[in-house]
């Protein structure tokens, strides 16, 4: 074999080996995370953890659970996802059905969304704090829903936008050609064609909302009770994990791992559920 050819094949082997190890590192570290959480969390996970709120002395290692945080997180994520979808879907429809595709406004709004996408959640939290001062709202589930909702809007809107962008223009034309208005085209045809992707976007938003810690610190507060109204403060899982992990009491730290396991499970279940949902809702997709 010629020398240069051998060199090239060697190079090929080296490159392949490098890529394999990179992929291995990536997946191994990610699997390590899941394993760590499962191993550390499983032993202190109990029925009581899931179904009761912190009792007296909980933070010293006595009885109780994290129902307050589970409920708070679920309420918060649900509320903010609904809010974000309510804002994000119209934006995606505007960008793909109403606005002229090569016009200025589309570019500007997409840029704004992309930039907002990159704005750190702590900045949203800080902005939420300023907003609450001005409007005069106390730390509450409501304030959290607003701010986390705003945080999630760019994610939901931009993902939905990408989904709707892939709808063939001929399909819109077909609807228009039958005399459908823009709204009918947007709602009954374009959104329907994008349904599976819209579902995915929604679940992504939910996942982001339930996992974010930095924006809820300022806005949602923390409490040992399950919130009774939307104006009550609420505990959230990420903050519960964070607070308990910094406790000097070993039992409390153990519970942080259990809470982390709960949060991870929610996310994983959501992700699997999302795949099933996409499969089902893509029945009519062309």
């Amino acid at each position, binding site marked *: 074999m010629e020398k240069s050819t051998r060199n090239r094949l060697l190079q*090929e082997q080296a490159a392949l080996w490098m890529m*394999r190890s*990179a992929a291995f590192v990536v997946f191994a570290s990610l699997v390590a995370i899941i394993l760590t959480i499962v191993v550390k969390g499983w032993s202190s996970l109990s029925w009581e953890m899931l179904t009761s709120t912190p009792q007296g002395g909980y933070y010293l290692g006595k009885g109780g659970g994290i129902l307050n945080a589970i409920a708070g997180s679920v309420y918060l994520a649900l509320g903010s996802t609904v809010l974000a979808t309510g804002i994000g879907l119209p934006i995606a429809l505007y960008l793909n059905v109403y606005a002229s595709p090569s016009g200025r*406004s589309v570019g500007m709004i997409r840029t*704004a*969304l992309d930039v907002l996408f990159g704005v750190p959640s*702590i900045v949203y939290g800080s902005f939420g704090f300023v907003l609450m001062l001005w409007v005069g709202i106390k730390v509450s589930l409501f304030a959290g829903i607003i701010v986390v909702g705003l945080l999630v809007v760019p994610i939901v809107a931009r993902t939905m936008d990408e989904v709707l962008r892939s709808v063939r223009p001929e399909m819109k034309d077909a609807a228009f050609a039958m005399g459908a*208005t823009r709204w009918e085209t947007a709602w009954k045809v374009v959104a329907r064609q994008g349904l599976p992707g819209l579902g995915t976007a929604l679940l992504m938003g939910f996942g982001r909302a339930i996992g974010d810690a930095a924006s809820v*610190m300022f806005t949602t507060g923390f409490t040992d009770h399950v919130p009774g109204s939307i104006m009550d403060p609420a505990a959230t899982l990420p903050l519960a994990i964070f607070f308990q992990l910094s406790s000097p009491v070993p039992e409390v730290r153990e519970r942080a791992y259990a809470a982390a396991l709960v949060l991870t499970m929610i996310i994983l279940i959501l992700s699997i559920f999302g*795949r099933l949902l996409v499969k089902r809702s893509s029945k009519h997709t062309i």
Partner: protein
Amino acid sequence: MGNRIFLSDPTACTAEVVAGARLLAVADRVGPDRAWRRAAMDNLMRVVVAMFAWCMPLLLLAIAIGLAVKAMPLISTTPLMDLLTSSEWRPLKGEFGFLAFIVGTVEVTLIAVLLAVPFGVLSGIYLSEHSNTATKRLAVPVLDMLGAIPSVIFGIWGVVLIVPLVRNGIAPFFGVASTGYTVLTGGLVLSVMVFPLITQVVHEVVRTVPNGLRDAGLALGATNWETTRKVVVRKALPGIWAACILGFSRAFGETIAVLMVVGNVVQIPWNPLQAGYPIPALIANNYGEMMSIPMYDSALMFAALLLLAIVLAFNLYARRVLKRMEIRAN
């Protein structure tokens, strides 16, 4: 039952049947009222969706203005240059120098991006170009899931695995004593957090490079790797760059995962094995007391504004580069 007549002999398509079609079709039997209502709905929704869309640039503006207004008291008493270049941080004395925090943020982000980009890009390319279908089928949903894992989980993992690794492994190797809560730890945790994102996006982008290009490369006698490097990667370069922008954005403002492992000591970390104090951690750690010390709230909002400004500048710059790349790629 007049309509039925036509159904009785449906296969015949005579002029009469076709005439029936005209009668049967909605034509003009539906009143103008309905048309008016539809048009009204359409116009209403046109306004609504446009309004929501234009709220987004406004939201960005509102965030900037809101933070700026709250940061004003600090900016008006201390010159901006001093805020950015001094590392004196004594809130009780009213001295606010952000340099240590800025350096901490930049260092952590840089470590994260420098680690995550090569690993993420290589595994993304591997996944789409050199792995078999079974691997792909497993890897793609797994990446999806991992990308959704909240940052606090990464923080825990950092505390449990990476902190001891740095304390007992990496630091002694360099002959340094360390608690393990260091800038390097923060960077490591962040890089792992960014892995799935970059891998996923690069995989998607590389996958969409048309097969014709690959065939052209292979037909010229290039090896698989040469084709990947010279043809596929070049074509996918804008997308890979976009993946890196995303990775940077995700890493840069990350709060909780970093906060948990980075040590939070106000000092300029001269080497990565020292503790640092990135800006997001500063805000998150002190928001509780910010109303009780004069100017402290203003200082923290200034910190948030600083984050926003950097993200904004980086994003706009990166997008310009992206545009230029896209033009060159075509």
